[in-house]
């Protein structure tokens, strides 16, 4: 553990810095280079989307930002300090499958990270209520995950990621398992929550449409070894609307990403 993580960061809260990061997976037969010399700057409050074909290491990069995996080389800092292990006060994580604990109710799931730190029951409940209200699930706290739809489960998951009010929210293909309509609704919901909280969001997805629709910036990655091949600014105004999907700006951005991905696939 590095004591640095507890010092007041020099950088403003919510900045994510990735410097010359590499990741090598050692297998018995050979070493696989998953990521090579990746550098990336995410300014506080930005919505950044990582896209790329399977195996480009975008999820691996996200896991390293979450402190769930350590890079082989280079440095990653969150709000100016390295992240040697997961720290839900600095970084919230939302996974593809809702990954809720099926034996706990929605509010108990949201309280889980607080319970790990011994926050009192009443305090926990109050904060879970606030988080559930934020994601539009007021009144559903007593339900178990199997009593919730896929979209609602992901809302609980987002509430759990935000309950400790971390400046950074990392999302690993959070809507990939949802149907198209639910996915669109959840995208709008996420943008609403993002606008309301001002969090930095780093979002991994396979969907080009989702990437352009949600992002301030899109980072395009290529596989074997994982590398950043393009960094696009999405100039579309906010709030984003469904009509923008058929506009020229949207189309040309999506085409540009697609050309990169087709080249590397």
């Amino acid at each position, binding site marked *: 553990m590095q004591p640095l993580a507890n010092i007041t960061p020099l950088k403003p809260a919510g900045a994510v810095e990735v410097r010359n990061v590499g990741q090598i997976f050692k297998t018995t037969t050979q070493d696989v280079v998953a990521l090579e010399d990746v550098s990336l700057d995410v300014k506080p409050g930005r919505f950044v989307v990582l896209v790329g074909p399977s195996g480009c290491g975008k999820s691996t990069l996200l896991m390293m930002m979450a402190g769930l995996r350590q890079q082989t080389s280079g440095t990653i800092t969150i709000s100016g300090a390295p992240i040697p292990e997961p720290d*839900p006060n600095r970084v919230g994580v939302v996974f593809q*499958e809702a990954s809720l604990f099926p034996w706990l109710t929605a509010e108990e799931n949201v309280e889980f990270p607080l319970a790990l730190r011994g926050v009192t029951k009443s305090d926990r409940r109050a904060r879970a209520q606030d988080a559930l209200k934020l994601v*539009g699930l007021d009144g559903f706290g007593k339900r178990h995950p*199997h009593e919730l739809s896929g979209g609602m489960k992901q809302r609980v998951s987002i509430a759990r990621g935000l309950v400790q009010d971390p400046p950074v929210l990392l999302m690993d293909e959070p809507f990939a398992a949802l149907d198209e309509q639910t996915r669109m609704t959840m995208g709008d919901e996420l943008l609403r929550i993002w606008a309301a909280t001002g969090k930095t969001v780093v979002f991994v997805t396979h969907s080009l449409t989702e990437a352009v629709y949600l992002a301030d910036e899109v980072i395009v990655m290529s596989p074997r070894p994982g590398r950043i091949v393009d960094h696009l600014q999405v100039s579309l105004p906010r709030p984003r609307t469904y009509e923008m999907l058929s506009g020229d700006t949207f189309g040309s951005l999506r085409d540009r990403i697609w050309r990169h991905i087709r080249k590397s696939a």
Partner: protein
Amino acid sequence: MTAATLRRLIVVGLIALWEILPRAGLIPELFLPSLSSTLAAGWNEAGEYGHALAVTLYEVAISMAFACGGGILLGAIVGSLPRPRILIMPMVSSLYAVPLVILYPVFTVWLGIGSESKIAFASIYGFLPTMLATAAGIQTIDPQLLLAARSMGATLSQRLVRVIIPAAIPTVLSGLRVGGALVIVGVVVSEMLISSAGIGYLISRYRTILDSPHVFAGVLLVLAMAIAFNAAIKWIERKAAIWQTGTRAGQNAAEEITPTLQPAT
């Protein structure tokens, strides 16, 4: 008529038949003594049956503790560590397919014909399914749940107590159900084979003198024991695993509430 009342009616009908058929002379008393003569036989020898029941219950209790305690402990170790799993699991699985009762005479040679040989035999008999189920339960825990817990800063012991144990409970309980039932079988069968006390011994002894009412009185006691055990497991299941309500009910619940949640999904 609901399925439950129908089930009760069937049981009542069978009990009535048990009384009526032998009394009407349709079945010889030697094959099936009437319920009333069975109960009377048991009542007249209440002291003998009471003593036998005490012996059997004692053996079952000790064996249950060994089988369940040892099964859960070893199952947890084997399930969570890959190396012992590779070494032990194939052996245990094939051992489970062997009719272990062939080893019982060997146990009596080692431990005598008292309770010790019964306890040893029944413990091993019930241990195998409990251990296999526990190992399977630990192995099949969704790694995503463990990753999520880690991302929220859960330590190893917190992951064990708050994720691994609750997630494994349903599989472990189904193992206990099978293991516990086999413990009862093991104790009674070994008593019937070679012994000098217990309900199995009584059944076997009365059978040799063709005293059917006394045989059936013993059978009733074993039946009662099995039913009591089943009720106990059901009670534990209800207490421990609310989430076993199943996905079907969950889907229905989700469908019911979807229209009330706007603009949710």
